[in-house]
């Protein structure tokens, strides 16, 4: 990544989707710049377009208008495979629904991103980070054998194991109780600080948003600075 430029930059981004009655504009006039190692919270009500914006910034989808740069690359015109190759090893994700593969153990889930990049030391590195998130004793457990909080900690370990430059988190505590939510958030910010990762976090939890360096508001598809 070119360290001189912002790792994430959106210019005049909009998203329109076709619906039965014509088309629906779900995002419009989005301008956003996220600096390296910055932590940004995107907050807003359900249906305001937060997750759609996160998907666009991460290159999971393409905007209908405007330009997006990710890790120094203009991903607006790239096809999905090219965007995937930019994500590989550089971008990590944490999801509200954890997205752990049910047939893989905790260790295998965490090793997966390393295996995709062809790392030789996937096992030891995954074990190390699982120990770091407090699950050293549970590496052979399957997701179903773990509690919600533990599953999200596995997901965080998986997100950080490749030492990504950028981490996208979509409601990371949304499915957790207050206590577990706090623990997961602590872990997320601690690892973020350790690795100097750029963090973009979507949440409707004001407390979680408050722990970020900056906070922006989504309302009806538009972005407002807090």
């Amino acid at each position, binding site marked *: 990544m070119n360290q001189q430029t912002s790792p994430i930059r959106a210019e005049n981004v909009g998203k329109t989707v076709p619906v039965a009655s014509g088309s629906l504009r779900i995002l419009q006039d989005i301008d956003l710049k996220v600096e390296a190692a910055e932590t940004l919270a995107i907050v807003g009500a359900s249906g305001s377009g937060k997750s759609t914006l996160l998907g666009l910034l*991460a290159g999971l989808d393409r905007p209908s208008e405007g330009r997006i740069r990710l890790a120094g690359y203009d991903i607006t015109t790239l096809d999905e495979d090219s965007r995937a190759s930019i994500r590989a090893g550089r971008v990590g994700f944490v999801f509200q629904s954890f997205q752990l593969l049910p047939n893989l153990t905790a260790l295998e889930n965490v090793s997966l991103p390393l295996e995709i990049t062809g790392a030789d030391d996937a096992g030891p590195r995954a074990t190390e980070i699982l120990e770091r998130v407090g699950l050293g004793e549970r590496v052979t457990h399957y*997701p179903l054998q773990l509690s919600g909080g533990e599953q999200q900690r596995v997901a965080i370990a998986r997100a950080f194991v490749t030492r990504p430059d950028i981490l996208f988190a979509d409601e990371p505590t949304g499915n957790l109780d207050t206590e577990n939510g706090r623990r997961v958030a602590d872990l997320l910010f601690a690892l973020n600080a350790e690795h100097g990762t750029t963090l973009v976090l979507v949440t409707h939890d004001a407390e979680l948003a408050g722990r970020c360096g900056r906070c922006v508001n989504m309302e009806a598809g538009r972005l407002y600075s807090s």
Partner: protein
Amino acid sequence: MRPSQVLALSPRLLWREWRSGELSILLLALVVAIGSHTAIGHFADRISRGMTINAQHVIGGDLVMSSSRPFDPAVREEAARLDIETASTQRFFTVAGTGEDILLVSVKSVGDSYPLKGSLRVTRELYGAEEAVQSGPGRGEAWVEARVLHALGIELGQEITIGESGFRVSRVLTYEPDRGNNFYSFNPRVMINQADLEETGVIQPGSRVWYRDLFAGDAVQVSRFRAWLELRLNPGEHIRNLDEDRPALSEALDKAKQYTGLASLVALLLAAVAVANSGRHYSERHYDTSALLRCLGCSQNDILGIYVLQLLLLALAGGVLGNLVGWLSQAGLIMVLGSLLPENIPGIGIEPVLSGMFLGFVVLLGFTLPSVLRLRAVPPQRVLRKDLTPLSLSARLVYGVTLTLIVTLMWIYTGNIILTLGMTGGSVVVIAVVALGIVGIFRLLARSLPLIPVQVRAGVRNFLRRRRETVAQTMAFGLTIMAMLVVLMLRTELITTWQETVPEDAPNHFVLNIQVHETEPWAEFTARRGIDAGPLYQVVRGRLIRINGTPVRDHVSKEDREDESINRELNLTWSEELPTDNRLTAGRWWQAGDRGHTRVSVEDELAERLGIAIGDELTFFTGDRNWTAKVVSLRRVKWDNFNPNFYMVFNPGALDTLPASWIGSFFLEPERKKLLVDMMRSFPSITLLEVDAVLRQIKTIIGQVILAVESILLFVLVAGFVVTLSAIHTSMNERLQEGALVRTLGAGRGLLHINQWSEFASMGLLAGLIGVLGAELVIAVLYWRIFELEYSPTWWAWALVPPLSALLIGLAGIWSSRRILAQPPIRILREAGA
């Protein structure tokens, strides 16, 4: 990702999935499909080869060549070059004498290697216990039929003379494998060693001798030899194999092979249904994984590579395991059936193994690739929005590819394009009709929902709500039922037809030369001893001498001059009705205007050989006079139906003034054979022919064919059953989740049971109807085009199958969803949430 990374990651992910148990259904479907396919393949291949070997015993070799002249020595040289065994026989009519009596006999001299296939049967005392022997009489010995002993008034151990040589009669001959069918018109047999032939001095230049060489060897070499021979056949030389020599047996074997092909095909279609179903399920289960892998940086091609490689590995595993299961099943079956099967079953062939492996790859890739291709297109945003599914491929493309694949596979496996198109066409029509039918039924059900009892209404509503899945699943069940019904119905029809070929009580003895004054005593004799005797037929012995005034020998081509039918007396009979098993191929049967005239119906193959046409005048010589008859019809005769059959049948009254005798047949149990001694004493002038050995041989083969067909049906049923279970299993996740939810809302066990039951039973009922309809269509086409059987709707299937299918699929559904009741709902809901 680099290809090497894909290669490393794909099996690792597959192994992890296998370990979690998620692959077992797909693999099970594949293993069962390949297993039943290869089991049928191996079993049918081995049994069929075994049966063919047995059947060849009936003609004494693989190939028979006959002529009225000695064969060119080059023939034997070529046979030797191709490692084909040869046995030669000579047959001629001559007189056997004892010094007091003489008898016209048919002598057969045989070499040491005769017979090449099958065995001769002899007894050491008159009507004693039979034994099978592999070679003919030794030098100086003669083996004779029982009637020779009766006619000449001698006993075993005494001597007869043939020409200038004397022979000690050492055995009674009861069966020779290559005797042929038209046994009752033959003169009694005397068999001698070929080495003694010359010394008898019977064969002189100009003598009429029929030479018959038997050949046996490796099938490829034999067919090569046959091709070689056909190019060099001299006029009057004929080659025949089983097909030509024993049409009924050959037909039974052919139909059994066609049936096997069809059963294989059905197993294949069941495989396709099962694998496509499990494949779709497999693919849908991987949407989340694919989306996640995409988020983590995998390209579309990486995803495709990973899953295609997994499919290849699965196909390999399924192929190996399926082959193993198939091999074990057929070996077990052959072991269990043991004594009922042909002797000397040949070893296992490589072909079913290879085709099983090939099948694994083709079926798995062909039928799951369309689903797996969708994985490539899973949008990565699915990690954020669960409702995003990949776009479907063009339905026309998917179905087009699948249909082409099925047709190609069917064609490869059956080698029969009509059968293939019949099955495919039938299935396509069924699917179209069913799709329309289902739409109608859905509308009807939706409308009549308020009328349905409240207890089962929820189940029916479920059935309606999951319309897409329900239609797919109902079709899958319907096609499975259809396939199984086709195999079942066809088997019933074929077996009935075969059993009719040789009924249990088919006559096993023929009597000739019953004189007019003996007919009543004969009836009394048989009735008193409880012998099951058939009607007597009046027979006139006559020789065909002219066709349209021209001597027969001048009328026919040079090579047909030696035809036995014009060189001996024929049995002529009359009949009011067209004899059973005869079919008119030209002309008409008797009319009122024929009374007072002499009309004849001629067997069609003889007519062709001798150039006889409708309207021709045939002149016969009987006793001391010539008389003529006009040909009014030609008939196809089933020579091997074990009833008296005739070349020439006349209209009633035509033979009244001619010297006649009677012929008949009867059935006698083997343990009552000694009665024949008594019979011959009471009727010394009759000629008795025993055909029970021939009959037994044919019955054995037919029995084996039936057994093979029954066993194959068993495989198909097992395959169908497992496929049905796997299909239910793949739809379970959603049902489990719903069931658990309903339970948390307070639904009781009873309600859930009724819900599940009514949903699956509705599906079963519909699938049963689809299955019967489809089977009727396919059967109608198959009967019409392939098996030449008469089609009539199978009412029992309409009455029985839909309710039975509702019951079984209902039970299977309840059994499969027992987890809803067995596990705490919270656990099921958590699993579903993950």
